[in-house]
């Protein structure tokens, strides 16, 4: 047991979860007091002692499934059935028996395609955990074609299985068949959502099954390595997949709120202003004329003005998306945020972002209406800077902080460093955020070096962690 737990912790650390000795001791101690035959309780107990951040939950669960999905899974299944007893009074007696049945069947015969289809349909209609697992097991057996020793990940087999199963068709069919005849559109919609949710569970069951088989084939450590996912905070903006993008977007929302809270607090707790003589004298009356309580004037809060100038050309589009999103979220916190976007032309988009509460809509408007293409639609920093210098640089004052977002890949156009230097001189601070890894700067058509000369500071902002750190400094 302790070896498995040790390996499990090593894997969690490898993924990047911060696990200190305290957490490990707690976890081991927890294992001595709980009922080890109940898989769900073991998992949640370990989670309670080990995880310290909600974002890490998923990584934890993946790793747990790998290391604690023993091939003798049926013990665990029975345990799971029992643990749900509290909620599902009727099912509880039946479920452990069912799983025994299914595991018995597994050894005896496999289902043919039609039987499998109807089994999946049944599972989707009822949504019962045991039948979901049962049909998933057979789906993998029939369609997975898991080849022993082949070093591919779970996703490969998952797609293969689901494609051969035509899951989407099945889901649509089940949704239609099982809906009540006289259902209104509204009810139909709700029902469809329900079936889709069940389908999601089915997918998970298939994934679990594949993982279980892979672990049996190659051992936990090897599978863990192929499954290792980057934590949301470490995902590279530019290479983020669709799911990762969604996760990052979700994470940015609270980030903006956190920054706002921190900012407000800092402002309030800042060094107090000059002595308020009148107020001090007034309060001294309650101490018999002794000025025991010294009163100060509140300092007037500074109203920083922020100019965000973002490159939205193809190469950094996803990064710009996040930054604009953050700007959008911050707009209500900072009194004055102005946003500009450019490719080879430059346009102000403050209004699009401010007027639309829905960010995606705002972004669509920016893409449609902002006048950012001058000639060929490839980034041209030189020209963008020139436009900014001509049109807007008069509005940059000593109170303004300017953020420049881009990879400085200029397609070998004119650099126009003087314009940037001008802006830098006028503004309170000029920061450049570059979404590319530092080693790539100044390679090819990247001209970070001359630009960074004009900036107060240059940051590499590739992931959420770095973005958070930067904004923290800013606030």
């Amino acid at each position, binding site marked *: 047991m302790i070896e498995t737990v040790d390996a499990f912790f090593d894997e969690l650390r490898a993924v990047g979860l*911060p696990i*200190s000795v*305290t*957490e490990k001791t*707690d976890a081991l*101690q*927890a294992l001595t*007091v*709980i*009922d080890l035959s*109940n898989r*769900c*309780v073991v*998992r*949640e*107990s370990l*989670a*309670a*002692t080990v*995880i*310290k*951040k*909600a974002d890490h*939950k998923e990584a934890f669960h993946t790793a747990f499934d790998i290391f604690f999905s023993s091939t003798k899974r049926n013990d665990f299944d029975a345990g799971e059935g*029992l*643990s749900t*007893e*509290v*909620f599902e009074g009727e099912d509880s007696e039946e479920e452990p028996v069912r799983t025994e049945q299914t595991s018995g069947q597994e050894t005896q015969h496999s289902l043919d395609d039609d039987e499998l289809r109807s089994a999946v349909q049944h599972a989707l209609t009822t949504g019962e955990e045991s039948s979901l697992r049962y049909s998933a097991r057979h789906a993998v057996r029939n369609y997975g074609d898991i080849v022993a020793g082949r070093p591919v990940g779970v996703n490969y087999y998952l797609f293969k299985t689901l494609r051969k199963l035509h899951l989407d068709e099945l889901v649509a069919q089940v949704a239609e068949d099982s809906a009540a005849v006289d259902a*209104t*559109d*509204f009810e139909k*919609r*709700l029902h469809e*959502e*329900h079936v889709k*949710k069940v389908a999601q569970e089915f997918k998970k069951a298939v994934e679990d099954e594949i993982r279980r088989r892979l672990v049996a084939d190659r051992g936990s450590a090897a599978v863990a390595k192929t499954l290792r996912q980057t934590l949301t905070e470490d995902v590279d903006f530019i290479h983020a997949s669709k799911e990762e993008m969604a996760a990052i977007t979700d994470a940015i929302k*609270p980030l903006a*709120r*956190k920054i706002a*809270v*921190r900012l407000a*607090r800092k402002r*309030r*707790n800042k060094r107090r202003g000059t002595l308020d003589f009148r107020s001090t004298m007034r309060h001294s009356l309650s101490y018999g004329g002794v000025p025991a309580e010294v009163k100060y004037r509140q300092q007037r809060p500074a109203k920083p003005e922020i100019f965000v100038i973002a490159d939205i050309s193809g190469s950094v589009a996803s990064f710009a998306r996040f930054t604009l999103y953050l700007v959008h979220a911050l707009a209500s916190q900072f009194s004055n945020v102005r946003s500009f976007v450019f490719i080879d032309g430059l346009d102000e988009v403050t209004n699009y972002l401010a007027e639309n*509460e*829905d960010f995606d809509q705002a972004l669509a408007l920016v893409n449609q209406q902002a006048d950012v293409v001058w000639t060929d639609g490839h980034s041209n920093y030189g020209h963008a800077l020139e436009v900014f210098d001509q049109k807007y640089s008069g509005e940059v004052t000593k109170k303004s902080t300017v953020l420049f977002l881009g990879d400085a890949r200029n397609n070998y156009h004119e650099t126009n460093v003087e314009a940037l230097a001008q802006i830098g001189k006028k503004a309170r601070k000029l920061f450049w955020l570059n979404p590319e890894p530092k080693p790539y700067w100044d390679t090819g058509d990247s001209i970070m070096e001359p630009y960074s000369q004009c900036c107060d500071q240059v940051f590499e902002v590739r992931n959420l962690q770095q973005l958070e750190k930067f904004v923290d400094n800013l606030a």
Partner: protein
Amino acid sequence: MEHRFESVSSVQKRLLDVDYLADEATASASFLADRLGKPILVEGPAGTGKTQLAKSVAEMLGARLLRLQCYEGLDEAKALYEWNYKKQLLRIQVENAQAAADAGSSTWQQMQDDIFTEDFLLSRPLLEAITAQDPVVLLIDEVDRVEIETEALLLEILSDYQVSIPELGTIKAKQIPLVFLTSNNTRELSEALKRRCLFLHMDYPDALREQQIIQTKLPEISQQLAEQVAAVVASIRALDLKKDPSISETLDWAQTLLLLGKQSIDTEVLDQTLTVLCKYRSDIEKVQKELVIT
């Protein structure tokens, strides 16, 4: 020391008796909090039953709930203890008067020993929790609202269950209370605090569990309506809203539907009562657009 709970499933059952539906994660964390003698840090969006968990655990144990509501500017005097300086002043004045009368013998030292005793100590929730004789549950609510420096105040009590008072020495806990900390995650809590706690993340329940919650809290509701309410709320939460409806708002809505005598939900009913679920204009518009007009 005697344990409060026998097993994880017994925690679940006993919580159900006080109308709180706990999932495995919640029950396991509560069980471990008792066995390992550690506080639980409960984190999650507003309205998922974090504070209610502490209340329900207190109710189930028949313990007194001590609540420390955190806010910005919370300090030692409000959280731990405070010297009752008015009483001390009175005491000194009486002493002075006496001293004048007997042409006095009382020294400063005596007086100091006199006025820094437990008689003059006002205990605040944290100190009270560890000195209490009867069973208590300590709830430190919205701990993310205090400044990061103030968090340090909590560390001694959370890890060693003791409070050090310079004038008196260290007061150790007579019993280890169950401690719940809640956080809405408006800022990252310090590592030191997190390390001392078990962590429990509470999210919105899935439709089935929410339906069970509705039925537990509103026994007179029909199964079908509860199911529908849960389904509609789940579908609303799936939209990208400013503020997702919380469990208590779901319950309010179910109650509203009951009062209006509705047996089932259609678009018209949803449209009329949507304001119970969503509190932002933009959210209401979005739900109307997505669900009402299809």
